[in-house]
């Protein structure tokens, strides 16, 4: 079985009953993670499907930004998002919109100096964590200890700054 979003082998299979209708979706591991399918209890299949495919209620109650309370319905009605976190929450419905709205979907303009260094830092933390997990899995504890120290170092530096 193929993934709903790409052509890879689907390994995650979701079934949900919405308004008395059953909906099924098959996703590969990468897409499942990208869509935030980690906790089946909080998941709504409707939020993963494109509008066209789902005639029934699009599950407005299911997409809410926990940070500011903006719902998918709010966004659909007013066209405005409520906060920075909304851009993560509503990304699945936003991406197809951006495609038609703008010349491209990747920012090519000015990069703010302060934010650039913050992004670089966040990326290096993520990378280090990944390497650390890998080292632990491989039972390369010497390398893991080194990475852990590096990570601590990096994190304490930013804490001091903040």
């Amino acid at each position, binding site marked *: 079985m193929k993934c709903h979003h790409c052509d890879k082998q689907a390994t995650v299979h979701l079934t949900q009953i919405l308004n008395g209708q059953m909906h099924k979706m098959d996703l590969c591991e990468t897409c499942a993670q990208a869509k935030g399918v980690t906790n089946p209890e909080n998941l709504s299949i409707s939020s993963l499907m494109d509008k066209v495919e789902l005639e029934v209620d699009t599950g407005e109650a299911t997409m809410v930004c926990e940070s500011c309370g903006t719902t998918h319905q709010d966004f659909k009605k007013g066209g405005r998002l409520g906060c920075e976190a909304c851009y993560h929450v509503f990304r699945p419905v936003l991406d197809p919109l951006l495609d038609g709205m703008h010349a491209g979907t990747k*920012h090519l*303009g000015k990069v*703010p*100096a*302060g934010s650039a260094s913050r992004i670089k830092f966040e990326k290096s933390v993520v990378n280090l964590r990944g390497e650390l997990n890998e080292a632990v899995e491989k039972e390369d504890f010497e390398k893991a200890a080194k990475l852990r120290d590096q990570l601590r170092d990096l994190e304490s530096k930013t804490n001091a700054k903040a």
Partner: protein
Amino acid sequence: MFHNILSHEGKGKKAPKAIPVTLSTRIRLARNLRQFPFPGRAEVSQKRAVLNQCIEALSGIKNLNDSISVEVDDLSELDRQILVEQHLISPELSQVEEGSGIVLSPDRSCCIMINEEDHLRIQVLRPGLDFSSVWKAVDAVDSGIESAINYAYDGDLGFLTACPTNLGTGMRASVMMHLPGLVMSKNMDKVINAVNQLGIAVRGLFGEGSDANGSIFQISNQQTLGESEGAIIDRLNSTLKSLVHQENNAREKLLQDDRTKLIDKMSRAIGILKTCHLMQSSEAMDLLSLVRLATDFGMLPDKFRGLADKMFIEIQPGHVQFSAGKSIEPSSRDELRADVLRNQFARTPSLDLDS
């Protein structure tokens, strides 16, 4: 106190000479602070915190020394209307309740709106057509603020804004254009359709949903994501150049095909401005537009172009009300507007038809 800055011409640099077709250039950047909900979702206390942080950050910027900062709350209805008429603040900001503010540079070329749709709307406005200097100025203010404040920014989506139509650069670059030739030759609809195809929007004098009074249009980029600021400005610039070209062609053609009719129109406009006793703003806009056109044809001395531009703003309802110094009825507003115009145009010469 705010009235002082409103009634003054703005000190500092002398205004550049008004040029044909292009009235003014503006660039606006939308920015938000990290860790605060956007204004539409924020509590008053959060908006206040944002306002304070922004004003603090702005006070450290060199070019904004001696700026005036006020809370929108503290401004009268009339003050707000005047700022809207001068294109310094948006009609939206003039309607907001608590926790929004305005920072205005002494020469009034830079105006920052705080807690409008986004936390910050940084704009620089200059007469004539000059994207490079306007971009330099707005970019410097933006970087200055950013050195003190963390912006909501994403590596892929760029600057995060309340409305996804502003994502990416958060930049709206626009030019105010005077296009009577295209309007009179009934080509404006065609032009609007064509530039829309290029991702460029055409609006009336006061932005979204407003009329194109006096044949004045705002031309701006529609898209903000997927291109650099430079690329957006280049595209807009080349569209503007072609618009100027088309406008000039339309004017020449009118002058060739309908010379007497056109001269009659412009001449009558001067006659009415010199002798009127009641004048509504929409009629005034159209007459002033004809004065500007006659100046562009070389039929009136150059200074009348600048005068028309000044009057485009001063005949707006808020400005007329302000010049009265007291509250007046709409009917006496038309009388007062006519007085102002009669005065300003009293010594206008007849059209020089040999030019």
